[in-house]
Each structure stands twice: as structure tokens, then as C-alpha cells.
């Protein structure tokens, strides 16, 4: 074969043909758009100085957690923040006016004629006085609530406080040394007593550090003990989410092998059993760590297994791990007749996996009926991103952040005509340089009410209808 017929050369020559200039109109269009588009402020460990040396990790030791424990008795007791006539204690700082007052500018009607003005049915019951502190997850344990997060009130200093609820309100106390803000997630332990916490770097391609994948197990009285997770190939790992079904706990994480991010998962079949690594097929890539998606709710449990969210090469998808039969095929969240461009890279990313038949992709709620996914409604007019979602009796309650990361908010959506209510929870933007984003990151139903956590603890009705004016 002559050089000119060398297939490689011909392929390269063919690919060399074609447009090589982006037309000027495209630059103008981009410029015009970015002039009107605010950048996403970044919250997360990757925002800090890029000094991820082994030495740093050796010194800093473990990635640590701030833990907020709320005992139900205290939480609900007379005089407590959830009690009808609670009076704030010095460190319990209910946010009154800003969160409880409907916001006039948030009252723009949306698709449904039954849409009502903004309603702040969800109220903040606690916020750190010295803020900003951020709670990234919350779970119900046998005797109350446990939330996890971090504080950055002392820049460049370890976190001293882990917040426990006490007679005087929420109080941050140290459980673990911290030298770096971390993504944290929490689940009730397999026996329902106590909690299992994740603390890890959500998504940093950190240098190999076999000590990173770990969980912390314990409760309020006994404290927490660290448990090492088997580390695949000795690669550094970050933990993303945790879910529980019966005695089984499931942890979703990421590993970095040769700089490549891959999903990983661990299971513990009971509080007495060791953690074991389970293979995750590579047909589902983890959600990319753009923007705030490090906080995305990406793992949940159903009756017989666990569900994780990610992306196939083309679209967001979920994948199910059945406890008896293992992994199923990716279930692509896609419908040819619906929205193709739901924001974010590609066709969007799952930011809140509500259950195996309801997900939020950026700012769009998708539901599965039968074998078909379809768009239930776009919440983008209210929430820039929906980070957390909860299926309640008469619809969904979704928490997230408004456009420009301005404030945390929830929308309560009815299945009946897609009427929704919007509540802007907090008007204050995070201070410059802060790691805290004023957003709702996690929600849980507890005691017939919805608890939402983020820059504060919010409490609201667990029925969409009760969000009506």
C-alpha cells in the first residue's frame, strides 16, 4: 500500500477537512448570554487552595464531620423550636420575618392557573449565630434527627463545633478534627439506633490515600468510631451518599484511578458485619462535579435494593442494585417527546434522586409511569437547582437554591395540575468567600412534618396542600 493510501493518513486527512472557525455571531451570542447569566458560586472542598499533597493529608488526617444531632424529645418538647409557641433561647435562633414572610417578587404565577403567590409555609427554626454553617444531609434515627455538615466560621481553622441539640438550642461541638470542609452524608445505622456518617471528599481527584474511604458509626452518647472501607486498587476515594434498607447500608462513592473518576459502592449487611466492596458496572458514570452537584442526592433505597443516579454517555440515568440479584441495566431518564435540554452539561444531571420513579434533573422533575419517563414539570422558574426532593402524600416538596445562589427555597408541587407553591426561605446571600451556600440540601419527613436542612434547619408541612395560602 502506498503512503497516500494509508488508511490512517486518509482518515486524518479527511478529518482535517471542514470548518475550523467559529462564526463571529456565535461569540456575540455567548457574550450576550453571559452578560445576563450569573456564574454559579462554588461550594465545596474544591474551592479552597489546591494543596492536596500527601503531607497535607498525613497532617490533616481524616476528613472530618460536623455533626448536628437533634433529639426528638428536645426538638419537639414544649418550648423547643418546633413547639407552637417556642421562644428562642440565646443560641436557638429562629428566623422569623425573613423566612416567614411571603416574598412578593417570588409570586409570579407559573403554568397552572391554580398557582398561588409565594408562601413561606416552611420556617427556619435554627441557624447558627456565628454562621455560616452548612448542613448537607439529615436523617431520622430511632430517637430523633441527625444532621451533618460543616462550619467555616473560623477560616483556616479546624472546625471545633459539632452541633448537638441541647437545652439551649443547637450547639456545635467537635466530633472529629477537621482541616477541610467536607461533604457529609448521614443515614440511620442498620439497626436504626445511632447513625452512620460519611465524611469524604465529594469529588476531588485527590492523591492516592488509602485512608480516605471511611465512615463513622456511633450515636450521641457513645460518640463515633471510624470504620475503614475496603479501598479498590488502593485509589483515593470520595464518598457521595448513603442509604439504608433494613439492616443493609449502602455507600456510593467515587474512586480515582489514573485520574479517572469511577463509581464505587460498599455494603454492610448489618452493624456487626464488615463493609464489602461491590463492583459497579461502568455503564453508568457518576454525576459530574459541576457546580453544587457535589451535594446531589444520588442514592436512595426502595423495598428490595438501592438506586443510584448518574449518566450514561448521553443522558442522565438511574441504576438499581437489587440485594438478591445485583445490578440492573441503566434506566435512562429520557423521553423523545419531552425536553432535550434540561440544563447542565449534556442533557443535564440528576441533582436529586427522590426514588426510582421520580428524579430531579437540574431543575426539572421527571416521573416514570410504566416504562416511560416524562417531564412532570419544570421548576426552573423557582429553583435554579433542586438538590433535594421528597415525595409526600399529595405531591412533591423540592428544596434547592434560587437563581444566582441567592437564597434557599422550596417548591411544593401538587400532582393535580402542577400547581406549585414557592417559598423563599432566607433572603441573605452567603458572605463573600464563604463556603456556605444559602440552599436546602436535604429533606426528610419527620413527625408529620418536613425537615429541610441547608444553611439552617427549616420545618414545614408534609402536605403540598398546606403550602397554599
Amino acid at each position, binding site marked *: 500500500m502506498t503512503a497516500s493510501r494509508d488508511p490512517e493518513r486518509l*482518515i486524518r486527512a479527511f478529518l482535517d*477537512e*471542514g470548518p475550523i472557525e467559529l462564526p463571529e455571531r456565535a461569540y456575540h451570542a*455567548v457574550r450576550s448570554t453571559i452578560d445576563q447569566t450569573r456564574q454559579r458560586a462554588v461550594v465545596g472542598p474544591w474551592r479552597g487552595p489546591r494543596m492536596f499533597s500527601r503531607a497535607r493529608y498525613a497532617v490533616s488526617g481524616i476528613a472530618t464531620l460536623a455533626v448536628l444531632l437533634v433529639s426528638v424529645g428536645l426538638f419537639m418538647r414544649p418550648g423547643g423550636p418546633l413547639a407552637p409557641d417556642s421562644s428562642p433561647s440565646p443560641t436557638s435562633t429562629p428566623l422569623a420575618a425573613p423566612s416567614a414572610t411571603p416574598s412578593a417578587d417570588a409570586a409570579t404565577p407559573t403554568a397552572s392557573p391554580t398557582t398561588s403567590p409565594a408562601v413561606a409555609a416552611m420556617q427556619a427554626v435554627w441557624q447558627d449565630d456565628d454562621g455560616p454553617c452548612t448542613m448537607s444531609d439529615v436523617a431520622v434515627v430511632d430517637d430523633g434527627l441527625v444532621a451533618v455538615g460543616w462550619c467555616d466560621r473560623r477560616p483556616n481553622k479546624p472546625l471545633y463545633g459539632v452541633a448537638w441539640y441541647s437545652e439551649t438550642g443547637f450547639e456545635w461541638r467537635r466530633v472529629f478534627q477537621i482541616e477541610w470542609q467536607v461533604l457529609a452524608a448521614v443515614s440511620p445505622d442498620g439497626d436504626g439506633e445511632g447513625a452512620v456518617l460519611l465524611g469524604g471528599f465529594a469529588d476531588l481527584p485527590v492523591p492516592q490515600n488509602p485512608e480516605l474511604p471511611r465512615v463513622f458509626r456511633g450515636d450521641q452518647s457513645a460518640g463515633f468510631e471510624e470504620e475503614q472501607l475496603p479501598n479498590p486498587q488502593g485509589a483515593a476515594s470520595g464518598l457521595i451518599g448513603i442509604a439504608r434498607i433494613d439492616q443493609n447500608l449502602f455507600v456510593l462513592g467515587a474512586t480515582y484511578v489514573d485520574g479517572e473518576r469511577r463509581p464505587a459502592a460498599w455494603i454492610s449487611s448489618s452493624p456487626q458485619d464488615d463493609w464489602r466492596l461491590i463492583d459497579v458496572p461502568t455503564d453508568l458514570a457518576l454525576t459530574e462535579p459541576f457546580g453544587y452537584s457535589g451535594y446531589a442526592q444520588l442514592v436512595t433505597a426502595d423495598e428490595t435494593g438501592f438506586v443510584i443516579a448518574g449518566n450514561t454517555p448521553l443522558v442522565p440515568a438511574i441504576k438499581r442494585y437489587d440485594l438478591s440479584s445485583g445490578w440492573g441495566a441503566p434506566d435512562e431518564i429520557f423521553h423523545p417527546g419531552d425536553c432535550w435540554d434540561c440544563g447542565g452539561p449534556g442533557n443535564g444531571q440528576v441533582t436529586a434522586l427522590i426514588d426510582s420513579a421520580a428524579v430531579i434533573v437540574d431543575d426539572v422533575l421527571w416521573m416514570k409511569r410504566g416504562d416511560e419517563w416524562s417531564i412532570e414539570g419544570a421548576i426552573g422558574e423557582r429553583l435554579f437547582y433542586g438538590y433535594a426532593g421528597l415525595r409526600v402524600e399529595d405531591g412533591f416538596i423540592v428544596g434547592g437554591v434560587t437563581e444566582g445562589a441567592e437564597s434557599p427555597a422550596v417548591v411544593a408541587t401538587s400532582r393535580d395540575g402542577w400547581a406549585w407553591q414557592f417559598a423563599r426561605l432566607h433572603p441573605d446571600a452567603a458572605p463573600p468567600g464563604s463556603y456556605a451556600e444559602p440552599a436546602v440540601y436535604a429533606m426528610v419527613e419527620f413527625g408529620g412534618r418536613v425537615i429541610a436542612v441547608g444553611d439552617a434547619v427549616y420545618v414545614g408541612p408534609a402536605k403540598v396542600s398546606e403550602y397554599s395560602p
Partner: protein
Amino acid sequence: MQRALVDQAKRGDPEAFDALARMVGDRCMAIAYRILRDADLAEDAVQNALIVAWRQLGALRDEDRFEPWLHRILTNECYAEARRRRRISVQLRALPTSGGAASTGDILNVNDRDQLERALRRLTLEQRAVVVFHHYVGLSLDEIASRLGIPLGTAKSRLHYASNALRASLEADARAPSVSRERPA
């Protein structure tokens, strides 16, 4: 220079981002076109990718990795654009144009172009992306896997399949005349 612009753009400077976009826009267009085989779709994909990049720039941890980071966004936008338009797409042949286009002289004949165009269009978008990043951008398989966020093995298999398909199309083209000649009249 690019790093400084990325840094400024991360701090919300649209002028810096505009300058950055102009530094990388042509390259993005070239890549997008070669993945999508359609100039209009490619232009839209690049536009969307740049806007996504602006919005998400704060998430870029290493300013020196701006272009690889952008290429991953761009590739995803190419996939999205293709799927978005699939419903209304009409199979139009994209012929080499003169203005703003590269040309390779006489290495390729008309049949080569035709066969390669057909073969490329038969590839999946994911395979095309790997082909483009390997043969056009000149990345190694390791780099492609990292840039596209796919396992190395996947990159290898996509390139293997695509290269075989492209070679086969050229070989078929080369064989076709002789077969024709041998056919009885």
C-alpha cells in the same frame, strides 16, 4: 495568558471570558463539527458549551486544565445537540466548504470522502468523539479517556471499532471498481 484569563473569568469577568472564548472557540468548532458532521449543530454545541463553561467555571479546580475541561463539556453538548435534533434531522451531506475550512489537497479522492463520510455517520457519537480526539486532536487513548470521562478500556474499544469501520469503508471503496470490472457484461 490563558490561565490568567481563566482566573479572571472565574472571578466573574465577562471580558476575560470573552477573550478566553475567542482563544478556544475555533478549536471547539473544529472538534464539534467533526463529531457532529453538521456545521449548524456544531455551532450550537459550541455556543452552549461556552455558556455552560461560564456558568460552571467556578467548579474548575485547575486553571491550567481549562481546555480539557471545556472539551468534555463540549462533547456532552455535542451528544445533547445531536439527540435534540434527531427528531427533525434531515440527512444532509456536509461537503467541504472553502471559507474558514481546512483542505487537504489531493490525498483524498471523491470516493474516499464519500466512503469516510458515510462510515463516520454510521458510527455512534461516542465512537466519533474518540476518533476525533485521537486522529484530529492527536490525543493518546489515556488522554481521551481522561478528557471524556470514560474508562480507558471503553476508549480503546470505541477507537478500535471505529478505526476498523473507517478502514473497511476505504477498503470497500478500493475494491469496488475491480469488482465492477469483473462483473459479466
